[in-house]
């Protein structure tokens, strides 16, 4: 891979959409001069755009005047960065000790079965992405599922379908 990916940006890439491109430029411009800018910019891109495509990584590298590999190395290292778009809603299943002991494996099984996808995948209609995540620190409410940014605690297997249906409807 090299910066040449920027010569041929796929149609569905955020960089090919003027609105998102403007947002990307704004984020890069705002943090460019901060020491250690790579992480700050990637974090912002992940939260604002939703993912960091390979072309976006190349674009960041070009703008920051750092090697493409340095940016890609950072993106691939941290689990919060994704290179594929996520669904409209993300269900993150906490895999902390308390949640694990509190029945998380059963919940994951149930969710996979209901949506017909594996962890890390997105439903065909683009509504829900399933993910496992590290301890969110809400252990006193285990087991916990983080729906988008909100932690839902004490989830029971028979409550899960309702939770999923609510997400699908929104």
């Amino acid at each position, binding site marked *: 891979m090299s910066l040449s990916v920027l010569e041929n940006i796929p149609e569905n890439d955020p960089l090919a959409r003027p609105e998102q491109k403007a947002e990307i430029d704004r984020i890069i411009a705002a943090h460019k001069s901060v020491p250690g800018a790579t992480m700050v910019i990637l974090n912002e891109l992940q939260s604002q755009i939703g993912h960091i495509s390979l072309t976006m990584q190349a674009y960041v590298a070009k703008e920051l005047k750092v090697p493409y590999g340095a940016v890609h190395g950072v993106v691939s290292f941290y689990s919060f960065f994704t290179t594929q778009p996520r669904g409209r809603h993300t269900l993150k299943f906490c895999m*902390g*000790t308390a949640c694990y002991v509190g029945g998380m494996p059963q919940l994951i099984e*149930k969710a996979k*079965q209901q949506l017909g996808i594996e962890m890390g995948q997105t439903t065909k209609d683009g509504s829900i992405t399933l993910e496992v995540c590290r301890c969110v*620190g809400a252990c006193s409410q285990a087991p916990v599922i983080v729906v988008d940014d909100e932690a839902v605690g004490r989830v029971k297997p028979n409550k899960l379908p309702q939770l999923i249906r609510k997400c699908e409807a929104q």
Partner: protein
Amino acid sequence: MSYFRSHILVCIDPACLAKGAHEVEDALQDELVAQGLIDEIQVLETSRIGGCSNGPELMVYPEGLHYVGLTPDDVPYLVEEHFLKGRPVKKFMEQIAVVTDEELGPPKPKEVRVVLRNCGQIDPNNIEDYIAEDGYEALAKALAMTPEAVIDEVSRSGLRGRGGAGFPAAKKWQLCRNVNDSPKYLTCNADEGDPGAFMNRRVLEGDPHSVIEGMIIAAFAIGASYGYVYCRAEYPLAVKTLNIAIQQAREFGLLGENILGSGFSFDLEVRVGAGAFVCGEETALIASIEGKRGEPRPRPPFPAVKGVWGKPTNNNNVETYAVVPQIMLKGADWYASMGTAKSKGTKTFAIGGDVNNAGLIEVPIGMTIREVVYDVAGGIRDGKGFKAVQIGGPMGGCLTTAHLDLPIDYESLTAAGAMMGSGGLVVMDEETCMVDIARFFMEFTQDESCGKCTPCRVGTKRMLEILERICNGEGKDGDIERLELLSQQIVKTSLCGLGQGAPNPVISTLKLFRHEYEAHIYEKRCPAKVCRALIHYQIEDNCTGCMVCARNCPVEAISGQRRAVHVIDPNVCIKCGICMQVCNFNAVAVTS
């Protein structure tokens, strides 16, 4: 601004208004004027006080008394008794509804709150609340001292790093101060990644200024000019709260140029991680702040010599910084009066798992595990038996009933094969399989291994494969010995704490629960009935045929007519255990 000795808050939500809240308020105003108290007592309207089931209601501050069910006719008596004579009127009083905070309720028996003292007590988004609780007084005191005197005070307090290793904080500061290079940096490790630990999150969310104040004091002692709080991305609220707090501290002149006119300047910012556990290791944390892959590097040089941007850097944990203002304010002797001979002060723990009162606690160091589990955390849930407590997170170890009287301090825990770690305590009852727990932690560390050094990258993978095999009922003779050998090698040869600690859960469970490993390998049996490949679910005769299990089974393995005993097809069953969880009649049994 006029000063009022008392404030009366009248609830004016629709329910109270309907019951005549405005009439009561008018009567209050009239009566206060009549009694000549209107310049001393202020009446305010507020939107909602409590449940409002018994309105009109009002709240009197500073006492915090809640009066309910008042009519205008009651007002003269109330004003005369309470505001003139100073006698609260019992018949109108209601106990303030206690808001249940599942993480941090009122102090439990034997708790001593130093770090957590303000959490849940003050508004974290308002610096004035913190200042009202003697906030930033310690900073003023420290800035009037010499940096050496500040370090000396912390040194005499005996404060040790709360990140887990327990290195004396003052010694660390002194090392960094002694390095002849500038600028110097300060980092705060808020990358609390241990599953089951959330003490730091709560401090950052509930009392962010204590951390900021501690950092400014430390920066002054060391001579640092800029600081970073490295917070994990899983804690968005903590990041937000911290940013608000830092902004407010700047506005108050507590961060920035010439702090409190002392000539000392310091500022700080929050850097957010992106989901990498290894960034809790200090050299990895520094790499991440610099915007790189969070990979550790060999030490020396230690961060005190070469840290952020290659400059001297002091790194401490959230809790370490948060306790510093208290030490400066109340004195080293006060702090050193708590704890044991070698470990002073208090420590916060997140206690979770199968205990009655899960949540955050803070106890003097040296309290025994028995006291923590039974007295503070209320014992084991559902009256089950205590099996083990896992302490120190994925790099820690397990302790059993034999260790119940072990004092919790750095040295005792290490000697017993566990470690203090950041302070996550997961209590497990009889229904927990220790091989499965070891596998769970190994899966975690294996996944979080950064891959830089071979023993950790490859070694943890091999260990995980063996553990998975054992849990799947495919364990072989010699597996235990192979695990032991791998453990020794990984501990000895890994680059950083993650690899060096990764085999700990296996080492400690092998030492204490070897028979469980043997049952899995030689008898193909899981004594705790957890490992899926080794267990079977069946429905007993007391099944009422309510069909709840059949509806909830993810693979439709359960069949049977309504009101007739159901049957699980063992060939379809994936042993997820959902049927057992949802059954209201305890009709689903598991055997191994």
